[in-house]
């Protein structure tokens, strides 16, 4: 059920209420989303709620219009992007995104390293090599020397990391359907165990964490290459 944004009869903006982004658009808590439809809804709601449309309304309606449109924009921006949509849903589920998944946290605790520094195991070797190269190029640039071969290697690394980052989107999307199936089962009144949900949440979280890690690496590579 979508929140009541404007009066169906007179078109006037209604007072804002604190709702989550899915509810704002009247969507179920599912991750597969028809983004073309979302865009149409966004445009249609903008035409009713935007401050420009309500510029001649009374002052409280103008305030509601401002508030509601900011909710609409926040909701649309968050839901249209696959990564921020997944992160948002996980957060609604009570997951603290700043932390690593439970499994990763446990691993970190055992090895005694801080959580943030957990490198996805399959990337370990790659990251080690990359950090050496980055350091080398930083030094070379500081001395005012150029190292075309090294730069080329970093460009190659960048390309492969970008490909990995994109592949991770597919990995993430692959978990959406089982998640949505759980939501459907719950809606149908079937029982879904917390363990089932936690398994999927952890899976998504692990992918998101790896992706964040790669994104940060890419940012670092970009910085060194561009400076």
């Amino acid at each position: 059920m979508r929140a009541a944004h404007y009066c169906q009869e007179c078109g006037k903006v209604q007072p804002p209420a604190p709702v989550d982004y899915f509810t704002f658009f009247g969507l179920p808590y599912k991750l597969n989303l028809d983004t073309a439809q979302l865009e149409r809804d966004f445009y249609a709601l903008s035409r009713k709620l935007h401050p420009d449309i309500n510029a001649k309304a009374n002052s409280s309606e103008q305030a509601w219009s401002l508030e509601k449109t900011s909710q609409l924009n926040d909701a649309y921006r968050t839901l249209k992007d696959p990564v921020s949509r997944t992160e948002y849903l996980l957060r609604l589920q009570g997951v603290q995104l700043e932390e690593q998944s439970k499994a990763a946290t446990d691993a970190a605790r055992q090895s005694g390293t801080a959580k943030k520094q957990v490198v996805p195991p399959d990337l370990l070797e790659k990251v080690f090599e990359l950090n050496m190269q980055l350091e080398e190029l930083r030094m070379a640039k500081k001395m005012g020397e150029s190292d075309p071969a090294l730069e080329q290697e970093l460009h190659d690394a960048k390309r492969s990391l970008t490909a990995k980052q994109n592949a991770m989107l597919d990995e993430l999307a692959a978990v959406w359907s089982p998640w949505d199936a759980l939501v459907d089962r719950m809606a149908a009144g079937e029982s879904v165990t917390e363990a089932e949900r936690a398994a999927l949440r952890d899976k998504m979280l692990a992918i998101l964490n790896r992706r964040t890690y790669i994104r940060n690496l890419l940012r670092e590579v970009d910085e060194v290459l561009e400076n």
Partner: protein
Amino acid sequence: MATDRIIGIDLGTTNSLVAYMENDRPIVIPGEDGLNLVPSVVALDEHDQIIVGNAARKYLIETPERAVYSVKRLMGRGVEDVQDELKLFPFRLADDLAAGEVLRIKLGNKTYTPPEISAFILRQLKRNADRYFGAPVSKAVITVPAYFNDAQRQATKDAGRIAGLEVLRLVNEPTAASLAYGLDKKETATVAVYDLGGGTFDVSILKLHEGIFEVIATNGDTHLGGDDIDNLLIAIALDDIQGDLGVDVRRSGEAVQTIRKAVIDAKIALSSQDETVLDVDLPNGKRYQRKITRPQYEQLIRPVIDRTVGPVRQAMKDAGLTPQQIDEAVLVGGSTRIPLVRRLVEEQFQRTPHADLNPDEVVALGAAVQANILGGGSEATKEMLLLDVTPLSLGIESLGGGVVKIIHRNSTIPESATEHFTTGVEGQTSVAIHVVQGERELAKDCRSLARFDLKGIPPMPAGLPRIEVKFLLDANGILHVSAREARSGKEAEIEVQPSYGLTDEQVEGMILESFDYAEEDFAQRQVIEARNEGDIILAALEKGRKSPAWQQLTSRERDDINKLENALKAVMPHDDYQAIRSAIDALNQATMHLAELMMDTAVTTALKGKTMETADVGEGPASPHPIAKAEIKS
């Protein structure tokens, strides 16, 4: 008479314009001199009266210490920001500026803040509109560079208030231009707007879809424009003059402004010619001439033009688009007349850019379209809606001087973010928040917007209070902050110290002053204009009496005219606008027949072989008079 007319204003670095949407078309409202462009020049004449626009230009050369131009470059900026500007522009700052104070500029022996100087320009535009409508306007949409930060936007809004205008919306210039271009377009398209003006550069990428103008990304440089090209040429001329003529005129404001004028002429000539001569008659009687060819000129200005490439690429990257995905590129701003600029745009977007609308006027026309939308819309605009973005990320300074971003650049506005704060020390009752704008990692490299002091927090153990602070960027791109203590639900008290800009009280003080002016001004101008009109009709009547047509009137008609003529003469010396107005109207009405007869006589005479001029039809009493514009239907 509609009192809620909303005008659209382009408050430019070099020129400003006012426009209005009439019969589904936006039009530029000309000034009294019949010109659409009002140069953004403000001067103080010998009687300390403010002069604006074309009339102020001569002061730039004659008494440069009493005139100022390109003041837009100083809007919303602090002393430390404008050091580079001060080297290149003859801005004279007040001597007694205190640290952290809003800049004040000297004009003669007076000082004004940049918003006040902008307000003088706005007031001139308002006057032009008042005159056009024959009634005062009080509401406006004003355009700003898309890349303007919060302080620059706030300063522009303040200028509007000082000028007696309620600023209903600040619209980004490239977006406004797209509105003017998109008026007839209903199809879906991705458009890039490249806007290089006198002092600012913006690039915006928009998606047009069934009347919705959705900005996807914007970027720019608020200190890049035609001014920079002028300054390059001026520097060369000054070097030459010292080298060739052996005189250093750098310190002569008069000489520099004379050179500047010549440089601008040369720049304009080089947009259509292959070469030109920079020709300056120096005030000391010496003459400086230098031939400049197009290739020389292009080589010289290339570095300036190339500075637009970075923002263009960043905007494309942020929009996630390649040049092939851009359907149209649109040129806005006077500097896009430069062929080199057109070539660069063509290279960047890989298509021939559009420049169908006058690049000097298109932003004002778009502002008028947005004004029309805000006023409830019309047939032409009823499907149109603008969804703009914030050009810069908004962040909070964290411990250690880093920045935590809370609103990212290119987010659709209005937009909000809620953050939670707590205390670090037992019993702490206030928390300071430093809000910055910009993309850099460290707070000191970003633009400081304001420091907020959250006060009145109930004393609690450290970390226990939960203060929820809401940051809201409104549709103008201006930040509003509110806070409450989440446990008690109490609104927290916020004390705002804007890093740059006028306080509300300061703006209030300035408004009152200019309001007095404005009301008085308007009434006085109405009387003066009515008197002029009266003089014209009386002179025309004098002529009419000598025409054979006069004898064709009935004696009753002649009596009526004589009586009304005396009535008009009686009220003219007094300051009662309404009385003069109705006396003019009455006399106009009474002389209608005379005018027709005179016209017939003239036509008959013309048919007999004489020209209209020799027939001495003159200005018939009812012929259109110079201020007929004020009567235009609306």
